[in-house]
């Protein structure tokens, strides 16, 4: 080990000793570095999955709340969206170290073991802070109600949209008199539109972004178009799979054709392509602030009704109370207050592309003047959602199992008809499987009442 000079060795030993002592003191406190800095009376830890434009809006709303409620310290944390978020939320709740407030997708609530991993909302307390059932779309509100208790307070609805660049479509003569894309009602018309757009677009870019490699997006798109065809999933008793292989094949072939006809560059980052000049991209409405921020001349409609009937995939962000053994008191009330505040001040949130769940917001002029939000607000009326079973929900087991099979068809590594068969087999298997949280199958009720 060489012969370091004595002084350096002493210095190292000294530093090492100090480091160990300091670390010990720190670890003994048991809290994070951040806790040392907090001085407010009531601390609400709030975990969310909002990044991108959403993150900025959420922070702005939180800052407004903080300004009006100096006695409540809001400690917000953003986790990476997807499995890590749910994993961590579930683990925190199971480990009884959950934050006071969390956000999750409404579709996941039923499988998230309400009562065990989630605590119910105190509806009276919410009313005290100005949020009542009457202010919501009843169907939406009821999606958060399980066994008569409210477990999820909806913040928004978010949908998959067809974004288009007006500058490109204008050249292709695809804009109507209102400056919006011409209506499309069949697959033939749709591919015709793509063909015309491709003729005038910038070379080297793709014509449309379809997230061909992304199992989540491909799954959401599938749900949308399968619903357009009137496809069903299960019977009401959840004992039988009604999945229609022919309809599914039709949808999968439709996706695949985008690739075989050369409208898609598989793997190309879709948002970047659109910003750099690609005429179309299918994205969640959360991309609105990104594209607006890039100063694009663009519009956004619900996914085109190429199979005749309008339907686009919709999910909902909802506030939840992760299970805490000692939930109650000032922190719990502060969590209610914060959630109620954010739900009511969601105009800012709408600027992020989402359709606010709190209906009074929707009827304000400020909301009606938002573009392109006013172009797709109709999506509220024809939502395509996953079946209500314990294994459904955003990045849930259903999406996790079926998403990759959709991708394999779109990417051409499996035939659409074969994939549709495989999807049916998978659904059959899932329907027979038990929710690990309560050991019940979907037919036995599972966690869904």
């Amino acid at each position: 080990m060489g012969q370091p000079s004595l002084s350096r060795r002493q210095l190292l030993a000294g530093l090492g000793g100090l480091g160990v002592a300091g670390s010990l003191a720190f670890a003994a406190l048991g809290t994070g570095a951040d806790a040392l800095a907090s001085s407010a009376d009531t601390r609400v830890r709030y975990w969310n999955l909002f990044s991108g434009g959403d993150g900025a809006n959420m922070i702005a709303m939180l800052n407004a709340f903080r300004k009006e409620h100096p006695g409540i310290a809001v400690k917000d944390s953003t986790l990476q969206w997807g499995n890590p978020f749910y994993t961590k939320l579930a683990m925190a709740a199971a480990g009884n170290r959950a934050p006071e407030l969390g956000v999750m997708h409404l579709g996941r609530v039923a499988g998230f073991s309400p009562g065990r991993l989630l605590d119910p909302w105190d509806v009276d307390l919410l009313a005290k802070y100005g949020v009542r059932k009457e202010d919501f779309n009843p169907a939406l509100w009821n999606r958060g109600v399980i066994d008569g208790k409210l477990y999820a307070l909806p913040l928004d609805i978010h949908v998959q949209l067809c974004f288009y660049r007006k500058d490109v479509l204008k050249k292709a003569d695809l804009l109507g008199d209102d400056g919006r894309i011409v209506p499309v009602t069949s697959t033939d018309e749709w591919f015709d539109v793509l063909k015309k757009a491709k003729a005038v677009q910038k070379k080297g870019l793709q014509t449309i972004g379809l997230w061909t490699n992304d199992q989540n997006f491909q799954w959401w798109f599938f749900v949308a178009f399968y619903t357009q065809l009137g496809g069903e999933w299960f019977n009401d008793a959840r004992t039988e799979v009604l999945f229609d292989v022919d309809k599914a094949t039709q949808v999968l072939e439709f996706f695949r054709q985008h690739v075989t006809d050369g409208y898609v560059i598989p793997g190309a980052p879709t948002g970047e392509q659109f910003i750099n000049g690609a005429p179309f991209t299918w994205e969640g409405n959360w991309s609105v602030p990104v594209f607006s921020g890039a100063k694009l001349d663009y519009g956004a409609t619900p996914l085109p009704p190429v199979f005749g009937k309008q339907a686009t995939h919709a999910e909902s962000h909802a506030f939840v109370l992760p299970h805490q053994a000692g939930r109650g008191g000032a922190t719990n009330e502060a969590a209610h207050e914060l959630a109620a505040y954010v739900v009511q001040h969601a105009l800012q949130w709408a600027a992020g592309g989402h359709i606010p769940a709190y209906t009074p917001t929707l009827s304000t002029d400020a909301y009606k003047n938002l573009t392109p939000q006013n172009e797709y607000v109709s999506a509220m009326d024809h939502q395509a959602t996953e079946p209500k079973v314990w294994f459904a929900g955003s990045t849930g087991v259903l999406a996790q199992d079926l998403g990759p099979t959709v991708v394999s068809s779109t990417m051409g590594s499996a035939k659409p008809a074969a994939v549709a068969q495989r999807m049916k087999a998978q659904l059959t298997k899932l329907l027979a499987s038990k929710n690990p949280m309560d050991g019940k199958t979907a037919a036995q009720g599972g966690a869904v009442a």
Partner: protein
Amino acid sequence: MTTSAQTVVAPARARTATAAATVRRKQGFQHGGWFVAPFLVLFALFVIWPLLRGVYLSFTDANISGEGASFVGLDNYREALGDSAMWDALGHSAYFTLLVVPCITVLAFLLAMLAHNIERGKWLWRLCFFAPFLLPSTVAGNMWQWLFTQGIGLFNQTFGLDTPWLTDKSYAMLAIVIETLWWTVGFSFLLYLAALQGIPDHLYEAAKLDGANAWHRIVHITLPMLRNITGLVIALQILASLQLFDQAVVMMDFSPGPELSTRSFVQYTLEQGFTSYRVGYASAMSIIFFVIIAAVALTRMWLLRNREEGGR
């Protein structure tokens, strides 16, 4: 370059001690249990107990909340052995291992030869080749995720390619292999370098006198002298590669990769435990994995022993 202590020649034992001193001397080495106790406590709590607990859980249908588990016998194992997704995941880990281990061994050897034989700036070569190993797995993963992203990444740009590294199932694992080579070769490189420095110069001098050229010296002196270290490098790499997780999930944004093509065994196990909340099932898979790892480790020990006996 082994430990200095091992090379110290032990002086002849002093035989002049009195009987009392002998007793005291012997007593000094008695009842040493207290020395090992602190470690054993930690070891029992965080290694042995989880192992036993894993065995127990693997016979139950426990979920993540830790409540209401019931005994299900061998069901989990039966399901696991028939679970094609598990076999796929094991296949991905094995495929990764098969690609990485030979590449890294050869590359590490070549880099060590290079660094050993350049006479100037030794510290610089060591620094450059070893620095990536000092990066956290997630940082290295993020760097390469960005380099490989189609359109905006510098990898394709630099080499004039348009390869969908991260989004096509035929490239995704290769992308992870390339990242892993860059990130971890430094460790094996250092082992080789240390071993090269341990080869006595007089062997080479003697060979030179006998008229052996550089190639012959490598084949007849360097390579045989590196046999042990190569065995070690390969064994360590196999064990590490089979446990693929960090860089794969980071580069794939925590997804199982395009069409599940990069889902490793570890990732699938954690998905079962922490996404599907099936702790019992995940535990069964953990135990299966433990058996596989133990088999690899024991095979190496067996090979070593055979060789030693054969060499004598």
